[in-house]
Structures are given as structure tokens and as C-alpha cells.
């Protein structure tokens, strides 16, 4: 059985996968920051993101949370909930200001890309 003439080959598929990940990476930071306007711990944050159509692996999410915290955008604390200790994250004041700027940037970018794609 021969592949359809316009089907992507292996190199194109790999390239697409790289570009998709790159595109997703920036969006993921904004999604996490946006979701953390309300306090979450890792597990509920992941569930909340997945419910809104953005599933994230634990291996990606937890290091990202630590990185955002070290950049001063998040604050966290260990607290007990349901008799278990959990690490809760939320936006820091700097994080709140940054999210506002990023959201404006995102909307502008989104609108620009929508216009560019409509032109085609």
C-alpha cells in the first residue's frame, strides 16, 4: 500500500513534532501561570489543565513549577490537606503583573496570527 501523495514523510513528521513542542512550550508557561491565579498543588493543577484541554506530563510540570518559583513568579508552601502534606503554589505579586503582560501579548499575537492565516 503506497502512502497518499500529500502524506508527510518521517523527516517532516519529526520536524512537525519539534515545532509543535516549541509552540506548546511557551503556551504551557502561560497556561500554568494563568491557572495559578487560584492556588493549586501539583496534582490538582495538572487535572485542571487537562480538563481544559491541556494535558501535561508530571515530568514536565513539576520542574516547570520549580523554575517559575525560582524566577520569582510563583510562591509555594507545604500545607496539610485531607491529612496529607501537599505543596501549594500560587502567583506571586510579580507573577500577577507578569501574567497580565503575557496575556496581553498572547492576545495580540493570537489576533495577528489569525489575521495572517486568514490572508492565505
Amino acid at each position, binding site marked *: 500500500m503506497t502512502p497518499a501523495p500529500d502524506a508527510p514523510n518521517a523527516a517532516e513528521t519529526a520536524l512537525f513534532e519539534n515545532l509543535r513542542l516549541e509552540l506548546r512550550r511557551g503556551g504551557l508557561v502561560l497556561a500554568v501561570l494563568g491557572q495559578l491565579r487560584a492556588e493549586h*498543588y*501539583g496534582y490538582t493543577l495538572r487535572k485542571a489543565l487537562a480538563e481544559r484541554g491541556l494535558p501535561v506530563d*508530571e*515530568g*514536565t510540570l*513539576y520542574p516547570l513549577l*520549580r523554575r517559575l518559583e525560582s524566577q520569582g513568579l510563583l510562591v509555594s508552601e507545604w500545607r496539610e490537606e485531607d491529612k*496529607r*502534606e*501537599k505543596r501549594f503554589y500560587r502567583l506571586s505579586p510579580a507573577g500577577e503583573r507578569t501574567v497580565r503582560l503575557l496575556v496581553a501579548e498572547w492576545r495580540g499575537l493570537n489576533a495577528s496570527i489569525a489575521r495572517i492565516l486568514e490572508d492565505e
Partner: protein
Amino acid sequence: MTPLIERYLQNVRLSLPAARREDIIRELAEDIRTQVADREEELGRALSEDEQEALLKHFGHPLALATRYGPQRHVIGPALFPVYWMTLKIALGGALAVNVAIAIAWLATGSPAGRAVGHLVTFPFTIGVATFGWVTLVFALLDLNLPRLLEHAWADLKVVALPRPEGKGRRWTLLAEIVGSSIFLIWWLAIPRSPVLLFGPAAAFLAPAPIFHQLYVPITAIWLASLVVLWAVLLRPDWARVRTFGRFLTDGLSLVLATILLRTDAVVQLAPGVEATDKLVDVVRFINTQARIVVLIWLLAATWQIIYSIYRVVTASSTDR
């Protein structure tokens, strides 16, 4: 916490930055516990080993996960940096020791003292810089490709096949071996074009004996094979048979090569066209004697390695898993 999950977390812990290690593990453990509890409530029973395995797969290879916790991109990332630093110190120390030995050999064979001292004074700017460059280059390439290789290996790897928690030293040793072998291979492959890499300034009057040319390809092949085996051991610890067979094969062939070399009169001779003065003949004899001692040590080490491998295979059934 089941033994399988404990084992996974221990493997992550080994490569985490020490200052945040416990905190990170505590958080990951809590997430896993919650996921397991949710799944068990859904199913109304305890999770099987396969189901735990599937859950852990989402977290990624332990080394890859730990690497993501380190600072962002450097030439050598945080996961490899400790072993890079250790290898660099060993390589520079080894290179210095060899060059001090060369300088002593020159003095012992009557060369002017200025030559030996000059060689040692220029060491940091010539061989030292080159050693630093090669070690760094090999580690940088390894670091660049490590995430992709780990991701590839992780797809089929069983958590139960991960090294035991006490295996940190073993993994660092393996990485150091891989880098050391790679550097050796680059050096070895460059020798036919640049004999100066083998003899240093003495390449002006020394040349490899015919046995060197006869054994060059077999030695290259064995070294390449042993490098492949080392990679297999690092990335796929569950390929026990490939590992055992590969090690036996490379150790056995090393033994054969060492035996052949030990029976050879000379590994070094005077370069063509060089007049055989008494002093030069003495130098060649001295080097060949030293080479025989090195080969003898190699033979003993290869023999010991085979005996140890047999011991490991025999005792594996009682200690594995």
C-alpha cells in the same frame, strides 16, 4: 509506597541537586501516592505492577526528570557536570603523570635537562589545553544528545530494570568510562595520520613496529564494540544478556590481543632513515621494556575482568531483582 515506586524515586533522587533533593522527592512521592489512591479507588483494588509501571512512565526516565530540575542550558548540564568534572581531573592528572614520566625517561637516557623542563613548562598550554578541549567536547556532545537517547530508551525500559539505589557510583563510573573510551578512540583514530600523538616530540625518531599496523584494526573494532556495550549498559540495564555477552566478548578479545602483544619483541622501533646510535637504541629498548610491563598489567586486568564477570554471572541468580 511500593518497592517499584520507591525504586523509581530513589533513581530520580540520585541525580537531583543536593540542596533541593528531599523537597522535590517529597512532592513527587505525594503526587504518585495521590494518583495511586485515585486509581485504586476507581478500580476497587490495589494496582498491579504493570499499572504502577504505566503510571511511572508519565514521569519520564529518572535521569531525564532530574535533569529538568537543574538550571537551564549550559555547555555541560547539571546531570553530567559532576562526572565531567571528575573525568577532567582524572584526564589532566593522567596526562600530567604520563608527561612527567616522559620527561624522567629523557633525563634517564641522557637528554639535556632543559628539554625535559621545557616540555613540562609548556604542558599546560599544549597537552593540557588539548585534554581539556577533548574532554569538554565529548561531554558537550553527550549532554546535547542525552535527553533524546534517554527518552528513546525509556519507551521500552522497565522500572524494575533500573539500577538499585546504591548504584550511583556505578552509573557515574559508566559515564566516565564512556567518555574516557570515546576520547581514547578519537586519539587512537588520529594516530595513523599524526604519530606525534603517540610519541610526542619523539615521533621524529620513533615509529610503531609492524605489530602495531597488524593489530590496529582489531584494537579499533574491540574498542568500538566495548563502547557500544557501555552505552547498552547505561541506557538499557534490562538487556542483561547483551551486556553479559558483549562484556565477555570484548574482555576475551582483549585477552587475546594482550597475549599476542606480550609475545612480540618490539612495539616501537626507530623511524625509517634514522641512524641507530647507541643512545637511540637504548631509548627504543627502554620503551619496549616499559610497554611489555604495561601489556602484562593489561593482561592481568583483562584476566581479572573475565574472572569477575564469570563470578557476577554465577551469583546473579541469587542477587538480581
